[in-house]
């Protein structure tokens, strides 16, 4: 079982991705950094990619999900080049929830979740009792059964995100990539969605990679953090290894104090802004 526990499901190998002329992920750095980004995603783990705005974390995720073709390097799914596997076959192993997905007006929840079954269907077989059972179960599991017949646009942001996660669940993939699943949600709903992701991992054994903005939530919900800056991985490892005061400075250019989270014991980042620094200086002179 030990070999299974460390099986690499998804791997980025010397990856370089960009839009137009510009290389967003995997450019070489001026201080002698090698070009190309490497990343291993191990079976049955939750990985959170963190980093400042524009650091290429979403681009990396989209390239790993074969939504973007890399300029150089490869993405390997279970050891095979993802661009050489038929896209439909990939969709039975790897699911992706894009950032801020939009459903067409009038689409009801059950129909959206049923779209997750698309990779398992053919044009002449667009429905099966199996599909129906999976969809019903996915709705039940995320607590969205009550909305099954309602159009998506009548739901709140938090409910909507649960529905999209139901769709990803109905797709039935072992690997799930989530691009900022908590954007535009208030704190309670962010926790709600991440609890759902955690259950996907724990109860369903899913391997999850997600882009997250909130460092403290990332520390709580991920086994492994990947900190990026300017398209390169600066440091990766357990939350305790990654969320340090020096990494905060290096990755975010942020002065911070890192203390143990009073609830979970994971690292908690307390930013020190200019205001606090000034106040600190004054305290020193006063005493």
């Amino acid at each position, binding site marked *: 079982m030990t070999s299974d526990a460390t099986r690499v499901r998804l791997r980025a190998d010397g990856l370089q991705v960009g839009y137009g002329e510009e290389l967003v992920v995997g450019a070489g750095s001026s201080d002698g950094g090698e070009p190309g980004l490497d990343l291993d995603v191990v079976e049955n783990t939750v990985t959170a990619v963190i980093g400042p705005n524009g650091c290429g974390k979403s681009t990396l995720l*989209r390239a790993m*999900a*074969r*939504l973007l073709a890399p300029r150089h390097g490869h993405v390997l799914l279970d050891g095979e080049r993802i661009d050489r596997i*038929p*896209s*439909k*076959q*990939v*969709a*039975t192993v790897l*699911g*992706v*929830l*894009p950032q801020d*997905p*939009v*459903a*067409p*007006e*009038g*689409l009801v929840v*059950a*129909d*959206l979740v*049923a*779209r*997750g079954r*698309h*990779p398992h*269907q*053919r*044009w*002449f*077989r*667009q*429905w*099966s*009792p199996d599909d*129906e*059972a999976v*969809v*019903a*179960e996915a*709705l*039940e599991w995320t607590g969205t*059964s009550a909305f*099954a*017949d309602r159009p998506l646009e009548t739901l709140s942001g938090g409910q909507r995100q649960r529905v999209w996660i139901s769709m990803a669940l109905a*797709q039935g993939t072992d690997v799930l990539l989530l691009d900022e699943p908590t954007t535009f949600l208030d704190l309670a709903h962010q926790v709600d969605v991440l609890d759902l992701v955690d259950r996907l991992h724990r109860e369903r054994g899913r391997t999850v990679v997600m882009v997250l903005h909130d460092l403290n939530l990332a520390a709580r919900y991920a086994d492994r953090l990947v900190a990026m800056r300017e398209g390169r991985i600066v440091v990766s490892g357990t939350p305790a290894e990654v969320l340090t005061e020096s990494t905060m400075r290096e990755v975010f250019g942020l002065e911070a104090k890192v203390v143990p989270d009073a609830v979970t014991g994971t690292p908690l980042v307390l930013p020190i802004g200019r205001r606090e620094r000034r106040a600190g200086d004054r305290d020193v002179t006063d005493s």
Partner: protein
Amino acid sequence: MSGVVTTARRGVRVGPFAAVWRRRPAAVAVVALVALVVLAAVNLGRGDFPIPVSEVVRILLGGGDSADAYIVTELRLPRTLTGIFVGAALGLAGALTQAVVRNPLASPDILGVTDGASLFAVASVVLTGGAGVAGLAVSPIGTPLAALSGGLVAAALVYALAYRKGLDGFRLLLVGIGVSSASVSLTTYLLVSANVLQAGQVLTWLRGSLASRSWENVVPAGLVVVIGLPVAIVLAFRLAALELGDEAARGLGVRVDRARAGVVGVAVVLAAVATACAGPIRFVALVVPQIMLRLSGGSRPPLVGSALGGAVLVVAADLVARTVLGEAVPVGVVTVVVGAPYLLYLLVRRTRRRTV
């Protein structure tokens, strides 16, 4: 299923085929079909020599008076059948483009097909007629062929100009409007430079007319609908994923560009052939899918429903044109009168929603 089936969705299976059974769209389609049959029967009875509907039905079922039968099957049936097939092709083409572009304004009219077809048809008449061909300016075969190629060329041009590492719906609409406008101004230039006789004939064609259609017009329109509808239904399977946006569709394993090109391609052929058979009948492809969507519910226009709705609208417009406005008024005039206010309504509604 004894499990937790939370939805009212039921499957329907015929042999190896299985789909979700949806009652409302099916009911709407049945109603549209009944309406179509009634309208067609009434339309077949109308003319200089009126024939009662009961007699029309008897003739269509193989009986009736032989003189009446000749009038109905040889003289009037081609007109009504052309209307049915052209309407169905336009309705279907509109449903496909609106679903794939995810915009209710998208239709072959706006994507340049109709105006491109018109330009080529007019050019074929004016440019060859100018060389001194005597007699009828609008040829029964040459003009439709020119229209067909014009529609395809215009659509290909729009697609090529709008394509930039993928297809953006909004850019497609803008480029389509541009190409359409250019075609319209060239058409106007050709008309102005044509002689009066040619111009008169061409103008009638340009308004979209079902008058004096023969079986030669029925066959291509019928073929394209009979082939196009099943092809559209097969391609439409991917529309379910495409509707969720490019990234989500790719995530579900759909090759987005290929799937979209296929759907648009079928729509363009349908619209171009329809225009070739009856001239540009505007707004059917724009209006019908949206009406059928509202009647049927769901997230995108129904394909079979839109085909039936298109046929109903064209036959009804033909009936109205001949009954109320007089025999000489082409069907395209009526569809414009119905469609133009609807287009305004759509534009106002969309603008409002965006600003609120």
